[in-house]
């Protein structure tokens, strides 16, 4: 009875949150594994990160972890890592690092591939981005 009254006092959105939690987020072991994996990427994006390493961190086999990560974050670990690196590279370019320094500082190895990737994601080359950021100051 008390549960029923509590349920009636909740807003539509609160009931929806509880419903979605039950449907999507009831497996704590899986959530632990993907959260641990994501935190590892956040703290090690500047080093070489691969699926074998991540599967050790997440205590799951490579392809199981890949599926879980995609299920909970909607992106593969590789896509997430790339976005993280690009986000950090924008910060470093704004601070005045050269393109090569920036490329290496966020875990990419080849400055020309980095510039191509940066342009495809941001719409400007790293140098153009840096010029605009400096001009905006």
């Amino acid at each position, binding site marked *: 009875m008390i549960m029923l009254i509590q349920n009636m006092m909740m*807003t*539509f*959105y*609160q009931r929806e*949150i509880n419903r*979605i*939690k039950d449907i*999507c987020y009831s497996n704590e072991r899986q*959530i632990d594994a993907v959260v641990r994996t*994501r935190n590892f990427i956040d703290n090690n994006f500047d080093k070489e990160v691969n699926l074998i390493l991540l599967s050790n961190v997440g205590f799951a086999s490579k392809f199981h972890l890949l599926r879980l990560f995609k299920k909970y974050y909607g992106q593969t670990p590789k896509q997430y890592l790339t976005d993280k690196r690009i986000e950090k590279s924008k910060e470093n370019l704004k601070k005045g690092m050269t393109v090569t320094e920036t490329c290496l500082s966020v875990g990419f190895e080849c400055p020309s591939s980095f510039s191509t990737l940066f342009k495809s994601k941001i719409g400007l080359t790293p140098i153009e981005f840096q010029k605009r950021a400096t001009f905006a100051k």
Partner: protein
Amino acid sequence: MRAKIISIPVQDQEKALKFYSDKLGFVKKVDVPLGEGNRWLTVVSKEEQDGPELLLEPSPNHFEPAKIYQKALFDAGIPYTQFNVDSVQQEYERLINLGVEFSIKPTEMGTVKIAVFNDSCGNNIQLVEMK
């Protein structure tokens, strides 16, 4: 094509500008008078001033269905939009101290932590922290 504007309906633009600046910490970017007291008014995140602009638009005062839609969302507790923060708990405590009302306290939800507050302009806004 680029997505630059996130529109938020507000009942009072001046009050909204005060709330979004003084309490939430956004910074005014564009303020163009559009006659009869209406403005094209945008704010941006202080840490990301080249990021998306929030357009605080007075639609509920001029278009009845907008007013009805805003009220229906508000009454159902549904957030109009959401902002990302590094720590939902810290932001919750900071905003509570500034007198902001929360309909959902910091709540773990799988890979995110969320909280929902009243923006005092007719909307619920959700805070999200990725875990």
